[in-house]
């Protein structure tokens, strides 16, 4: 793993190292999420609100109830996006859903079912992600989902697979220099129940009006039609917007560093541990890098280093 520069990141490294190296943990399927974390990484310094963003179950591939269920069904149900360019988007030419997150979904299916094509991609709205996991509508969510303490109360996350932050998208013609300038007195757009929505609620920075939509891409439509002035989104999705419209730009500085994780039901401990092992293999086997090069290199830069958790 690469050099980490945040406490939470360090925690993840420690956790992963401890789990892989020592094998001191209980079986993934029987131990609770929180219990494992505390037991495995006593040196973790909890964040201010008592939650560790990078913590998850140790990687392990034991067949538990959930894995058995998925294998009986023969297909992995994955919650995805169809509007996140390069992440999870419907290719308008072929009608197929593709992207970095979709590659990850296929990697999980290959590991669980032996066949990467055994996935049922279910598009879900940003706002519905938590409920979809809790209700069991989907097995996993790979949908550029930011790990937050609030969400961890409702769902379980894998270890991080991508580093992200909050970014503002604004028209180039606005010549915005900073985040505050981009939001103050402006009509700001964000996806409903996204981390950007939460950020705007916590600190609106003087936004004149906040418009919440089903999907961050709807914000770009509204911006092009002049109905909003700026959009707040995850840096990954903000970059995806800029990649689709050369007349908008990432304005101001990135803030609120965070991680993306695979969301799962808290009860599916065997699946959580399994996915964490998939993530370890995906990175060490070059899959992560290959997907980055395929989808993200052009819009996010040749070096993936800033994004590796």
């Amino acid at each position: 793993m690469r050099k980490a520069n945040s406490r939470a990141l360090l925690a993840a490294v420690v956790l992963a190292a401890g789990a892989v190296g020592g094998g001191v943990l209980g079986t993934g399927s029987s131990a609770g999420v929180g219990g494992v974390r505390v037991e495995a990484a006593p040196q973790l310094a909890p964040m201010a609100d008592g939650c560790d963003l990078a913590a998850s179950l140790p990687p392990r591939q034991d067949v538990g109830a959930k894995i058995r269920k998925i294998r009986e069904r023969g297909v992995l149900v994955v919650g995805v996006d169809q509007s996140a360019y390069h992440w999870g988007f419907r290719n308008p030419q072929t009608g197929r859903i593709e992207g970095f997150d979709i590659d990850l979904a296929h990697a999980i299916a290959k590991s669980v079912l032996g066949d990467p094509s055994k996935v049922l991609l279910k598009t879900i709205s940003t706002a519905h992600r938590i409920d979809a996991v809790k209700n069991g509508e989907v097995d996993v969510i790979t949908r550029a989902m930011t790990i937050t303490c609030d969400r961890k109360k409702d769902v379980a996350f894998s270890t991080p697979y991508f580093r992200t932050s909050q970014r503002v998208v604004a028209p180039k013609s606005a010549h915005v220099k900073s985040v505050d300038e981009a939001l103050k007195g402006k009509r700001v757009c964000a996806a409903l129940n996204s981390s950007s929505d939460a950020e705007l609620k916590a600190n609106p920075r003087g936004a004149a009006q906040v418009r919440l939509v089903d999907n961050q891409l709807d914000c770009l439509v509204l911006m092009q039609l002049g109905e909003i002035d700026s959009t707040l989104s995850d840096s990954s999705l903000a970059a995806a917007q800029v990649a689709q419209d050369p007349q908008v730009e990432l304005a101001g500085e990135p803030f609120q560093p965070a991680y993306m994780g695979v969301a799962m039901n808290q009860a599916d401990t065997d699946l959580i541990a399994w996915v964490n092992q998939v993530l370890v293999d995906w990175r060490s086997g070059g899959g992560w890098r290959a997907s980055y090069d395929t989808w993200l290199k052009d819009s996010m830069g040749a070096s993936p280093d800033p994004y590796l958790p």
Partner: protein
Amino acid sequence: MATPAVIEAQGGTAAAVRPGGGALGRVRRAAATPPGRLRTASAVLALLALLFGVSAVWQSATRSAAAGQVVTRSGPLNQDAAEIYRSLADADATAAAGFLLAGDETPEVRKRYQDDLATASRLLSQAAARSGSSASAQQWLTELNGQLPRYAGLVETARAISRQGLPLGGAYLRYASDLMQNTMLPNAQKLVDAESAQLDADYRTAGAVPWLALLSGLLALAALARYQRVLFRRTNRVFNPGLVAASVAMLLAFGWLGVGTLAVNGYLHDSRYRGVDRLDDLDRVRIAALQAHTAETLNLVSRGATDKYTQRWDELTKKLADSPRIPGSESRLSMAADEGTKKPLADADRWYGQWLDLHKNAATQDAAGDYDAAVQLTLKPGNADTADSAYRAADEQWARAAQVEQASFRGAAGGLDDLLVVQAAAAGVLAAVAATAAVRGIGRRLAEYR
């Protein structure tokens, strides 16, 4: 009916009680003399005949105008409004289908979308140009006229962006579809409501019973009868020819008005049953089916993002499956079928059943995780065995049945305005004849006093 008696009695009593002075007194005294009584009677009879004539002409003319409106304006406008709604809703479903088919979109799908827009735009300008649309209808027409180019622009933007391989195109299509579903279609529905209210009003006016004319006619007839009886007794003469002629003319006019009213209202009722009630039923079914078809397509576009569309499908097909007694149920159509519409409605019913079956198959595939199979079963181009083509076939037959109904509507309602014009003219002429004959007849009696 008491009037004639009063005329006769009035002279005596009024003069006796108040022999007083002034112009009014002079008139009263003059009226109290036998020639005066005759003059008064003559004036009253002529006035009653003329009152009948004027009210019959006025009421028949009003009804004639309304009956003409039913055929030339509110009837067609009512159908045009329903057609505008259908083209708009179909355009949205077709745009969504084109998006779903992606690179497989056929020229036919593209053409259907363009035809829908062309139809909507033609009918909108036609309806706006027809004078005399109600104010509320004009308002919805104006709004739709402004929104249609905006919608078309958004859909073309979506297409252009999708061609570059960007998901932003899909977001534009969602935006366009929201504009259609949440703003334009509700406006089109209000237009339909306004036009059908106008049609109802025209039917009411055209079918209004001419009470004033009938009443004044009865009054005139009674006055004639009563006065002739009085004269008959006083003079020992058998009949006054002028008054007899006046009575005959009045009877004729009254009979014409009565029978004519009954006949016209019968035709109106018939045309209403076909042109309004049965076409209404057809329109309801067609629009509900179209909305269900749109929901079916949009559900595939949303790809599980919301169950809004499956819910809408369930609601609409439940409504269509209602018992024949409920307007808007599909089975009601076959119940009301006659010679002309039997065949298309039976065909439509068969296609409709097939559509539901195919939809169920596609939904089963979708639920089992085979999204591609669901899309193929729903609208694979060039495949006759899809839900889409079954729906199209059903709607084509419904449209055919609607044409038959419209033709018989025109048959039943057409020419009624002319009938009413003739009726107005006849009532007017006969009333004038009656008034003249009454004045002349009494004039001859009057001459005997000179």
